[in-house]
């Protein structure tokens, strides 16, 4: 139980650091100052409480104080919550239960979705201009390379399909072939019958 707090602490620090990287976070946090949300995961059997203030957000597995919004769901269902359209369906299917202010969960996820971090600048501040520029260029080049690879692969597949298509028989050719096969089968049947007649 004690050790489970280690990843939570690390996650909390990571989230705080991410928020700090965007100057706009301050204003977004101010709007949520003092708000608290609890997420109970039935399959994990635990509830995590997220408290927000102007300094950032705080996670706790042991907080039992009242909250502004309480969500009960299952770990596997969480990804579906990103789509607002799924919420009513999940509630009806008994896979989700929300008490209190439902907008709070959305506001919290927006806090991170709206993060706009100037990575080149952040890296330059930490590593110095030259290494940062090198890192950014390498990253951009690898991304370009990856994108190029992906589009090359797609192009190859498309070409292969077109070429295959040219080799494939048309519908008319195929039905002609099919009627030829049927005629052939009829002739073989006939021959077979004649043969058995001679034997008899």
């Amino acid at each position: 139980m004690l050790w489970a707090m280690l990843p939570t602490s690390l996650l909390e620090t990571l989230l705080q650091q991410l928020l700090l990287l965007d100057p706009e976070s301050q204003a977004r946090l101010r709007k949520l100052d003092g708000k608290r949300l609890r997420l109970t995961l039935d399959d994990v059997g635990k509830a995590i409480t997220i408290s927000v203030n102007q300094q950032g957000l705080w996670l706790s597995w042991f907080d039992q104080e009242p909250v502004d919004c309480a969500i009960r769901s299952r770990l596997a269902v969480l990804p579906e919550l990103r789509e607002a359209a799924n919420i009513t369906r999940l509630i009806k299917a008994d896979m989700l239960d929300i008490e209190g202010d439902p907008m709070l969960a959305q506001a919290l996820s927006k806090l991170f979705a709206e993060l706009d971090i100037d990575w080149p600048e952040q890296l330059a501040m930490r590593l110095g201009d030259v290494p940062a520029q090198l890192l950014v260029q390498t990253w951009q080049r690898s991304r370009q390379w990856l994108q190029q690879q992906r589009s090359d692969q797609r192009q190859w597949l498309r070409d292969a399909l077109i070429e295959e298509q040219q080799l494939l028989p048309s519908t008319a050719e195929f039905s002609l072939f099919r009627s030829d096969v049927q005629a052939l089968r009829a002739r073989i049947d006939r021959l077979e019958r004649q043969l058995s007649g001679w034997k008899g």
Partner: protein
Amino acid sequence: MKSATRTPIGNSMTDKQQDTIDFGYQQVAKADKQKLVANVFQSVAQKYDLMNDLMSFGIHRLWKRYTIDCSGVRAGMRVLDIAGGTGDLTEQFARRVGASGEVVLADINDAMLAVGRDKLRNRGIVGNVRYVQANAEELPFADDSFDIITIAFGLRNVTDKQKALESMFRVLKPGGRLLVLEFSKPQPPLLSQAYDFYSFNVLPKMGQLVAGDADSYQYLAESIRMHPDQETLKSMMEQAGYAEVSYHNLTGGIVAMHRGYKF
């Protein structure tokens, strides 16, 4: 650590008259304990944080984190971290209560407070922390002042623990809670033996090596053994007036976190 007049525990049983009190395994005059404890912490202040990490393999951070998580702290609250020393709990509370709240870091020892103040300022904790030199037995605060009070690894050093619990009760707001994080009695026998070996053989040597002070760490090991066990501390809290007192053992009972409310 400088020593004062100390008598071995076996020789002095005048404790019945309440003239003497334990200082580790020694019995000392009641009036002397405060000074002796002050010497210990004066001597370890500079190396205190480093020693904490070394001695507990960093686990003290998780014990403290657990205490914060159980405190129910929220933006705008007033928190007292008594015997707060170098301010580990204060730092976490200050971040959580925000600008509208306040944390008082109080300690009897100015050397520990000074290390705490410098550390917190270097980490950008300013504006919502007040530093007060105070004795837990006679807190210099008005009645009903705090939403939360914590005393972490401090109570066993206090001369009159019952008086300190009562003093904290007085300054707690109705509805507020006290959290006591303290070394306690390890539950599994094997753990208890290993822990004894570690405390009396490894700890003082580590103290000598890192802080150049074996005596203080010998005192640490002894004072832990002399501290009331889980159930005794629980009933002491109830006697002081706290309601719904409960405790939770951490790391097999090496440490326990007691919680009680003032209603």
